[in-house]
C-alpha cells in the first residue's frame, strides 16, 4: 500500500458515500451537500493524478459556482422534503439493476482501455500543457463551445423577458 493508494481509496470511498447519500437523502439541501462532497472528492482524485489545474477548477466551478446556485435555488423556493410516490418505488426497484448494469459496463470499458490510458502524455495534465492543447490544437472546438454557451445564455434571457 503506497500512500497514494491509501489516499485514493479514502477519496473514492468519500465520493461513493456522497453519491449514495445524494440519492438516499430526503431533503434537497442534504442532497446538494452530498453532491458537493462528491465534487470535492473528485477534485482530490484529479489532484492525485497530477492534474492540479483541473482539480482547482473542479472545485471553483462545480463545487463553488454551480452548487452555490443549486443551494440558492433550493433556499429561494424553500423546497420541502421529497415525498414517496408509487412511481418513486418503481424507480427504486428498476433503478438498482440498471445502476449495476451501468457500473458493470463502465468497469469493463475501463479494464479494456487501461493500457491505452497508461501511455497518455503526462504533460497534458499541467496548466501549461492544458492551455497549449486548449488554445493551439483544439482552439476551434473550444471557441465553438463558448459560442454555444453564449447562445444558451441568450435563449435564457429571451425566455425570461417574454412575459413582459
Amino acid at each position: 500500500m503506497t500512500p497514494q493508494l491509501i489516499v485514493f481509496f479514502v477519496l473514492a470511498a468519500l465520493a461513493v458515500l456522497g453519491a449514495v447519500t445524494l440519492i438516499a437523502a430526503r431533503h434537497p439541501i442534504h442532497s446538494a451537500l452530498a453532491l458537493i462532497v462528491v465534487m470535492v472528492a473528485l477534485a482530490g482524485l484529479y489532484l492525485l493524478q497530477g492534474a492540479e489545474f483541473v482539480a482547482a477548477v473542479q472545485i471553483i466551478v462545480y463545487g463553488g459556482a454551480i452548487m452555490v446556485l443549486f443551494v440558492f435555488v433550493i433556499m429561494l423556493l424553500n423546497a420541502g422534503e421529497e415525498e414517496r410516490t408509487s412511481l418513486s418505488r418503481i424507480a427504486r426497484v428498476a433503478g438498482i439493476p440498471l445502476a449495476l448494469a451501468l457500473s458493470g459496463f463502465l468497469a469493463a470499458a475501463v479494464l479494456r482501455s487501461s493500457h491505452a490510458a497508461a501511455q497518455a502524455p503526462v504533460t497534458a495534465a499541467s496548466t501549461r500543457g492544458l492551455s497549449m492543447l486548449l488554445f493551439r490544437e483544439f482552439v476551434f472546438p473550444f471557441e465553438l463551445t463558448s459560442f454555444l454557451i453564449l447562445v444558451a445564455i441568450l435563449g435564457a434571457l429571451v425566455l425570461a423577458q417574454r412575459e413582459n
Partner: protein
Amino acid sequence: MTDIINILRQHSFLVIALVKCGLLLFILLTVLAYLSLFERKVLAHIQSRWGPYRVGPHGLLQPLADGLKFLFKEDPMPAGVDRFVFLLAPFLSLALALTSLAVIPFGPQPLRFSILGTQYETSLGIVDLNIGLLVLFAITALGVYGVALAGWASNSKYPLLGGLRSSAQMMSYELALTMSVVGVILMAGSFNLREIVTAQEGRMFFGLLPRWNVIAGPFPQIIGFFCYFVAAIAETNRAPFDLPEAESELVAGFNTEYASFKFAMFFMGEYANMITVSCLATIMFFGGWTSPFPSAWSWTHFIPSALLAVLGVLLLIDGIRYETILGKLVLPGVGTALCALSALLLFFAPVNNYIQGPFWFLLKVFIFIFFYVWMRGTLPRFRYDQLMAIGWKILLPLSIANVLLTSLGILKWGLR
C-alpha cells in the same frame, strides 16, 4: 527514546509542517482576538469615543474576557433547526477561512535552524503550491456555504434572508474577483504566489519606484486592484457590503440564531477572511515582501527597529501616567520589551536582515486591514439593488476590460 528521535528525524518534513501549522494557528487566533479590539478602538476613535477601556489597561484584556464569555455562555439550539447543517455551518466557515492562510508565503528567505546537530531548512509559510492562487479561490468559493447554510438551517425568517443575500452577493462578486487578478497572472506567468512576488522585484524610474504590479508596466494594474479590492470587501461580507447581516433590516442576519462559541466561530472566520484577502492584495498588487525603498538606501533597514523604539517609548510615557496600578505596571513593561526588541534588531544584523521581508509584508497587510476598518467607520451601507448593479454593471465589465488591456500591453511592449 533514541528510536523516537530517529523516527522524527526520518519524517522531519511532516514534523516541521505540523509544528508550523500549530504555530500559525496559535498566532492567527491571537491576532484574530486582538483584531476585534483593534476594530472597536479604531471605530470608536472615528466616532469620537474611547472604545473598550475597562478590562485591562486601554482595554487590552478585552479579547480575553470576550473569549471567556463566548466559552461559558449558554448555547441554545432553536426548535425546528436542521441539527446537522446547523452545526456544520459555523465549522465550515471557520475551517475554510483558516485553511486559506496555509498557502500564503510570509517572507522571501527560508528559515534555517539546527536541532541535535542536524540542519533543517523551511520556508516561511506552510505550503508552496504551483497553483496557490487557484487553491485560494477554490477555498473562497466553498466559503459561501458557511453563511448560506447557517441562514437556511436556522429555520427562521431573518437568517434565511441573510443567507439568501449572502449567496447571491458572493456569486455575483466572485466573477469580478477572479477576473480582476487575471492581469496579474498574465504579467507573472504563474499561479504560484512566490513567483508572482518575485516577478515584481526590481526598480523603475531611475530606481526610485518599486516595480509593483499596481504601478508597473506593461499595463499598470490599478483598475485590477480597484476591482479586486471592492469585490474582496463584498466577498468577506464587510461594510459597506454587509447586507447579509444588516442590523437595521435583518436583526443580525444569518447568525441571528447562533449563540456562544458557534457565533464566535463566524466572527473569527470573517476576520480570518479579511486577513487572507489583505495578504493576497499585498502579494498580487503591492509586491509582497519587497521594500518600497531602493536597496541602496541601507538606512531603510532600521525602519523596523525605529518603529518599535518609538512605540516602546510612547507606551513607557503613557504607562507611567496611567490611572490604574495594573496599567502602571503592564504598559511600561510592554514598552521596555519593545525597546529591548528594537535594540536587539539594531545590534544583530543577520536577524535584522532576515525580518526585513516579513516586516514589509505584515506592514502592508496591516495597512489594508486598517483600510477595512476605516471604510466600515465612514461609509454607509449600500442598498441591495445598488450592490447588484455595482457587481454586474461596473466591476465585471471593468475587470474584463482590464484583462483585454493587459493582454494588449503585453503583446505590444512585452513583459517588462
